[in-house]
């Protein structure tokens, strides 16, 4: 299977408005989880990894009325997608036929909730289309397409927390088949009352910043943001002189067929996703150096994930560095897969492995787990995995490599 080049990155996260500030924040071991101020909320958890400032729309080809109607995830997507295209140095004609693959989950729900409140309190005497047009999850991809002048195939995928890992996998597949030479793969998601209240009601939120793989882990912290990757046919990237940051060697997609929210206790789907990804990449488990884990910080997820890594990597696990970016960025849900793929690319490119912060002691059941702790680690990597699992049992693993 031929490799796909990663040539551009863009991000909006709690740690900053671009990929560079994310890289700095990760390297400094900063935790982006702080007070949740975006909306009033009950519940027992009052923190989240909120994006501090809504990114400006910037100079894009969108009329002012359209710009006003963009949702929070649309704005994140435009900022991250624009940055990734600039980073890759894509000229307008080089991206005109590119694909856009977006992973998203709630769309403009934050905006809908506000409109809903106005309607039910009588502030709006009737529903207004201008407050509703941002609702569908497919709007972020439309905004990217129209703002950046990208008119190739367009996909919006939603498999909860693995949405944008699936979008990255689907974008890479299109390049491999020769359907497109360039693709913008992106995940975007925003905090909203619905997500907060749902996870709070499930008692899945930790009132303290999340501590993935810790003995005392107590749930997840919600986050928001966007991550974008420009994927490209390797020969196309080389021909135009683009710097190849990393190679996407393979992807694995599988399902648990087990439960609407809980992972399969043995992680059967997740394990097959890892195995399928390694098989597609033509990489042996012994060659894996680093895993950017799903690592939500819930008791169940982390236990299943370690079991999956043990099963898929065997004795190699003890020599594989593992970190969970969610300890720094919270669980950005549909954006997590793309953001974590981006973080993995950064680790391959810089040799700087991001730490898992907030963790005092790793769960003693996992003495074979080499969790990267504060202040991070400097290690030259060759092969890395990034895994994402979603509600409904939708599992995706990506295999990334340092070029050359």
């Amino acid at each position: 299977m031929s490799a796909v080049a990663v040539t551009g990155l863009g991000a909006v996260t709690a740690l900053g408005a671009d990929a560079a500030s994310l890289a700095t924040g990760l390297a400094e071991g900063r935790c982006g989880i702080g007070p949740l101020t975006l909306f009033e909320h009950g519940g027992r958890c009052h923190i989240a990894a909120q994006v501090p400032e809504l990114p400006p729309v910037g100079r894009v080809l969108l009329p002012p009325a359209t710009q006003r109607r963009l949702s929070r995830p649309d704005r994140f997507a435009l900022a991250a997608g624009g940055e990734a295209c600039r980073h890759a140095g894509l000229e307008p004609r080089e991206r005109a036929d590119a694909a856009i693959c977006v992973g998203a989950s709630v769309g403009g729900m934050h905006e809908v909730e506000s409109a809903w409140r106005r309607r039910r309190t009588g502030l709006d005497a009737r529903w207004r289309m201008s407050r509703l047009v941002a609702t569908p999850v497919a709007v972020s991809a439309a905004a990217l397409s129209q703002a950046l002048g990208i008119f190739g195939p367009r996909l919006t995928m939603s498999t909860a927390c693995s949405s944008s890992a699936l979008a990255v996998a689907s974008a890479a597949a299109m390049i491999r088949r020769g359907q497109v030479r360039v693709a913008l793969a992106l995940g975007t998601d925003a905090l909203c009352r619905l997500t907060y209240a749902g996870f709070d009601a499930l008692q899945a939120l930790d009132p303290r910043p999340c501590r993935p793989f810790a003995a005392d882990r107590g749930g997840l912290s919600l986050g928001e943001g966007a991550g974008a990757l420009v994927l490209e046919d390797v020969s196309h990237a080389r021909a135009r002189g683009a710097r190849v940051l990393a190679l996407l060697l393979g992807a694995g997609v599988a399902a648990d067929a087990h439960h609407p929210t809980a992972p399969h206790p043995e992680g059967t789907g997740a394990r097959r996703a890892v195995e399928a990804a390694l098989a597609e990449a033509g990489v042996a488990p012994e060659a894996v150096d680093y895993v950017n884990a799903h690592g939500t910080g819930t008791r169940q997820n982390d236990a299943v994930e370690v079991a999956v890594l043990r099963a898929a990597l065997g004795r190699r696990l003890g020599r594989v560095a593992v970190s969970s970016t969610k300890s720094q960025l919270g669980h950005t849900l549909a954006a997590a897969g793309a953001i974590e793929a981006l973080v993995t690319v950064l680790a391959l490119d810089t040799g700087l492995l991001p730490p898992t912060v907030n963790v005092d002691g790793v769960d003693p059941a996992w003495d074979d787990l080499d969790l990267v702790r504060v202040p991070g680690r400097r290690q030259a990597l060759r092969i890395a995995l990034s895994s994402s699992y979603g509600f409904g049992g939708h599992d995706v693993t990506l295999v990334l490599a340092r070029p050359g």
Partner: protein
Amino acid sequence: MTEAVAVTGLGVVSALGSGVDEVAEALIAGYGGCRPARRVEAAPGAHLAEVAELEPRRWVRSSVGRRIDRTSLLALAAARLAVADAGLPPEAVAGERVGLAMGSAFGNLAETETFVERLLARGTGNPLVFPNLVLNAALGYASIELGVTGPSAMLSEQEASGEAAIQWGAQLVADGVVDVCIAGGADEVTGLLWRLGDETAHWSRDAPRPLDLAAAGPCPGEGGAAVVLEPMARARARGARVHARLVPDPGFAVPAPVHGWPTAPDRVAAGLRARLDGVAAVVASASGQPALDCLEADALALAGTRAAVTAPRGACGDFGTAGAVAVVVAALAVSRAVVPPTVGCVQPRRPDLDVVRGAARRTPVRAALVTGLARGGIVRPVRLEEP
């Protein structure tokens, strides 16, 4: 190496009935499923395309499936019907060599409404309902119920959510990654959705008039539709009846307002022209929404098609995955040599388009094209050919 993709099973649950034969009969007879609302709370006389009977016990087998929502149930019912139509036993669609692709524009609306109402009123969420609110609930339930553990995806592409899912699934088969793929989608209509569209003057309260000069808005509908896709060689080897061959196509996009319909039909026409080559039947996206109908009629005319055009949203109503119904209509056009009439179209917007009206057209269809137009400039065509 690319596998030819065979369509071996069709399943539909809609206002036109349940199961491909019942739905085909209704379509060919020109029956309109848009009727004064009965189940959904709407103004007296307002037209909706509602699914009359949807009994969970008929479709749900697992214990976790007892909490299934209506949209997921529509998708599951369509998937089970498609599997039965393909002549496959249930165990043949379980396992890791089976793929699943589902589409939905809005997912589970009814429970999202009650959840948000409670949240805004009391400030708390309902933990029993929340797992059903993810957009991929229909995908999760279908995977659990059918036992599908291969690659799966939920797609949401406005009005082209059904076409997008079917094309994603077809690509899995073409890539040789799966032996069988079930692909389709579902959307539901609720009282709130009707009210939103009514207060914003989006819906027509009367039956819709797709591609007609008098089109005054779509009629909200609901339903689920799915196809079973297999590698052609495998389908032939097991002696399956092949409805049609599906041409995998990633689609394209055109300049458009982010939240609305493209205004320039020439780009749509340019993209569709090659895909319309040799096509005898076009299954249109037109819903009675004037901006969409204009765009589509102009684009088809510009592309120079002489195909018979039919717009099933006149019969089954407008919803994000009505395009999956359109794919079923196209497959039936190829396999049964019949193009159903466009319910509600009396005087076509463009006289140079051959819109099938009144009675169904019996004619050999070697190739049919679903246009797959959606807001924001998405185009997800699905071309079906004689196997």
